[in-house]
């Protein structure tokens, strides 16, 4: 790390918004997992979706 980087690190504060956003979506993901949604997602993903590929 050169001089400029060190100076910038001292000057610039840590941004908190990304951590808040990531935490909020992590919570959302946990709620989804708690309701058993991944099993439904897997159920759909292992079947060929004919609509998705423009056939059905």
């Amino acid at each position, binding site marked *: 790390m*050169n*001089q*400029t*980087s060190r100076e*910038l*690190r001292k000057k*610039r*504060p*840590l*941004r908190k*918004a*990304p*951590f808040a*956003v*990531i935490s*909020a*979506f*992590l*919570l*959302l*993901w*946990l*709620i*989804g*997992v708690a*309701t*058993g*949604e*991944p099993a*439904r*997602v*897997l159920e*759909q*993903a*292992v079947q*060929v*979706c*004919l*609509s*998705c*590929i*423009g*056939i*059905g």
Partner: protein
Amino acid sequence: METVRKWVQVILGFLMNGSWSFPFTRTIYQGPLKVLCAPGLNCYSCPAATTYCPMGSIQQLLGGLRFALENGQYYFGFSVLGSIGVLGGLFGRMICGWACPFGFIQELLHKIPSRKFGIPRLLSYGKFMFLLLFVIVLPLVLVDEFGTGSPWFCKFICPAGTLEAGIPMLLLQPNLRNTIGLLFLNKFVIMILFLVWAIFASRPFCRTACPLGAFYALFNRVRLIKLHLDEAKCTNCKACHHVCPMGVKFNESPDDPECITCLACMNKACKFDAIFLEIGGLPLAVPDRGVSPGSKS
């Protein structure tokens, strides 16, 4: 750095499409890895796909929401939204530039020598319309007699699905060819249009129609990893305007929703080290070539 990015695109493309038993099984991968969310637009009906497509899953879950609720299942798509939300919060549209197989295909097509054209900025709002209307509203609102909605974007638009799943599945399963109709023809034409457009313009699908790109674009201001402009060093030379594959004028709009953090502006254009990559506000790397706006290189 461009070479590193290309290798990352190739490796992630293979990881998301790592099931190569399909020539023998003649169908898609059906293992447990498909509970994982693909960061980029990668159709889960692609025979080699090892992960699920977040846009496809969201539409399927919203389309089946009424039926699920009637059966006491609260499948609102929270796990999918949470997955792509965390990815968005970390990387934003950097995923488009580094981890999307369909974005990579468009980049390769754009290397074909031809006259190159820009894309009007107005068209970039189209992808937000596709996200709102085709991914959320229509699957949720327009339902059949059983209360089930269709995955509208996948069914009528998605060229990635046609290329990665539709065509391979038709080749693998001859009996499916009898079911080809107007629906497939519509999607095939859309795919051809975007692929040809990609030769003449940079990443046209990402810029005008990709709902996942639109979702990640919402995070570009607040994402953890992003490019930062040091205004004290910027000379307003506009060199960054000319190298951006997404048509971003970086020095005028550093948090532009179109920025895919390909780093072209930082590495190829800016001679004054005014652009650098940061994580949560802390600079990751600042190349210092001893050049400042006031000095001669």
